[in-house]
């Protein structure tokens, strides 16, 4: 039985009306304007189409510019019954499962490469960045972070702060360039930026009871700087945001870097490393090293999250407190008078 169809040869847009017969080995195509042709089954390609009413469109593997269109659904049925593998629905479920599985596999591979690969490369990469560049990056982030907030510049307070910093630095082995500033902000937090800039938010100084807790936090932040944690975190963030940018087209901004550093910069390992280094610095400087642990204890008691960013961003405080527990040995870092002066650092005179 011959089915009515149309045929284009892919050389011109002329359309030929043809009759198509399905035989055991292929199609026979004949028309008044054409010499008869035979298309073997194994050379046939069924073009994808949507909707049941869509006419069957065929081409050939050996020449994909040919088009044979047969509208009669009976022809389609006969053809697919004879050669089920030509049916586009053939093996569709398997293909769909393979597609979803494959995609999830690719995503998992990416995630794994990131999770295990980044810690290995972020440290050498961070160390390869020259200090001058690192300082500039730190300044850029500081600008975003501090923004319009004022730095606290009460002269007596600054003198006291300088004294404190100097005494803590005495315990640092290799010389590091460090600058410490206090910013008027209710956040109970301190942050170490690339290039050795440490920013203490005024909320922290208001919260603590005693200069040893400030020196404890400061020594901890110095620990981050000694190990170049912030630069490593930024390298990781860079790499991650590039991948994200690649897939979503979103742009990465410096504000994002600042936020990132506040919220989830450091890994557990980095925090532990900074804790240990901080305590070691204070021990070497001959100062009381139980301040940081005391500060953690204070934070745990108070669960007002709006002020206590420290809790959300760091590993469990109780664990860390236990790890760095110390006796009361060593000198208190500031005299009572100096401590009183430091607490006024944000007061205008």
């Amino acid at each position, binding site marked *: 039985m011959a089915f009515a169809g149309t045929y284009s040869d892919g050389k*011109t*847009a002329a359309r030929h009306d043809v009759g198509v017969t399905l035989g055991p080995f292929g199609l026979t195509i004949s028309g008044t304007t054409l010499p008869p042709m035979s298309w073997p089954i194994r050379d046939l390609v069924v073009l994808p189409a949507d909707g049941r009413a869509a006419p069957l469109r065929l081409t050939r593997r050996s020449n994909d510019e040919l088009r044979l269109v047969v509208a009669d659904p009976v022809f389609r049925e006969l053809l697919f019954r004879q050669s089920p593998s030509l049916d586009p629905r053939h093996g569709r479920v398997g293909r769909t499962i393979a597609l*979803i599985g494959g*995609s999830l596999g690719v995503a998992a591979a990416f995630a794994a490469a990131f999770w295990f690969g980044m810690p290995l490369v972020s440290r050498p990469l961070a160390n390869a960045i020259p200090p001058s560049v690192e300082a*500039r990056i730190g300044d850029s982030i500081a600008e975003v972070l501090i923004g319009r907030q004022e730095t606290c510049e009460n002269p007596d307070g600054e003198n006291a702060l300088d004294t404190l910093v100097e005494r803590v630095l005495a315990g640092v082995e290799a010389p590091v360039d460090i600058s410490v500033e206090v910013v008027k902000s209710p956040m109970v937090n301190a942050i170490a930026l690339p290039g050795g800039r440490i920013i203490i938010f005024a909320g922290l100084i208001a919260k603590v009871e005693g200069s040893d807790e400030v020196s404890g936090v400061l020594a901890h932040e110095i620990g981050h700087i000694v190990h170049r944690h912030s630069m490593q975190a930024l390298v990781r963030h860079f790499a991650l945001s*590039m991948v994200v940018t690649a897939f979503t*087209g979103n742009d990465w901004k410096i504000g994002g870097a600042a936020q990132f550093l506040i919220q989830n910069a450091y890994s557990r390992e980095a925090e532990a490393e900074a804790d240990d280094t901080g305590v070691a610095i204070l021990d070497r400087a001959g100062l009381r090293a139980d301040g940081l642990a005391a500060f953690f204890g204070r934070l745990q008691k108070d669960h007002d999250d709006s002020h206590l960013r420290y809790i959300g961003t760091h590993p469990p405080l109780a664990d860390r407190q236990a790890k760095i527990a110390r006796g009361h040995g060593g000198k208190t870092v500031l005299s009572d008078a100096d401590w009183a002066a430091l607490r006024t650092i944000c007061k205008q005179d």
Partner: protein
Amino acid sequence: MASVPISPLPTGGYVAPLPRSHTLDYVGPTGTMFAIFYKNLVLTILTLGIYRFWAKTRLRRFLWANTQVDGEGFEYTGTGKELFLGFLKAVAILVPLFGALQVLELLVLDQTMIGIAALSIFRVVLIVGLVYAGTFSARKFRMSRTTWRGIRFQQTGSMWRYAGMALLGFFLTAVTLGLYLPFLEAKLARYEMDNLRFGSAAFRFTGEGKTLLKVFLWIWVPFVVLAGGIGVLALYLFSAGQLADPKAQAMLGFLPFAIMIVLYPSMFWYMARAARFRADNTHLEGLSFSMPRLTGWRIFTLLLGNSLIFTFSLGILYPLTTQRTVRFWVRQLHLSGALDVDAIAQAERGPKTGEGLAGFFDIDVG
């Protein structure tokens, strides 16, 4: 066929309107559209987005097949794999490029204002240039994957030249306070069309910027007069020392909105006229295009209808808005004159992968 003697035109100068020689229609069933859209959505989510290239391919195949000339549909011959590979290629080039740009940004951010300004201008130029280059390159791919009766379309021309024309045009538009815009539109349309072929038949664009300028002036002049008026008023209030008066401030703040409200409808009017300008000046050998029934009001009702449908169905009926949009534009386009279809020969094959740049910037080219 017997030869028919061709009679000269009647001396009265009457020229009969060209008959509608070929029909163009969109006949996609709405049910199938919904099925495709939701299958695509589910698979895209399940594959964490990777399926989107195949999804796009599927949707296009449907739209193309149901856009029919003389009852015969177009065919989209592109594959999801080609789009995917094109995207990977773009990622491989663009990610290091943007990475370098970000490092550069970090380095100058705390430096001089000039450095910041230069970098942000560079960024804008780069991104706008890439967007236009990507759009044109996507056109090349799409056209090469569009066939009718087995004959391919072919978009020639350089994506970088196209991007350069756009960038220069935007600069001139800024310098001339917008007056250059119609010329830019005409120039880009000419570049697109004069480099477009259907098989061996070449498209031609005959429009000139000054024609569109005459239309554009109808909204440009009122805008400049109104904006200038506000400026003068502000200057007067300032010199009279009344700028601090809250009443004066409220008035000055309201006036720009008033301008927008007045000029908003004219935007649709211009959109319609610009689309008609593009269509009316496009020719394919003996075939001419036009959009005789297109008005700003019709565009407005189309867009308003779409946003109402989308909003009140909470997005569920989104495929319906696609249907409406495609049907609207296909049915607006009117074909007249004749094309000797049988004589049209095949065009060269197009690029192997495609639309990477456009895909990266998420330009939806349909």
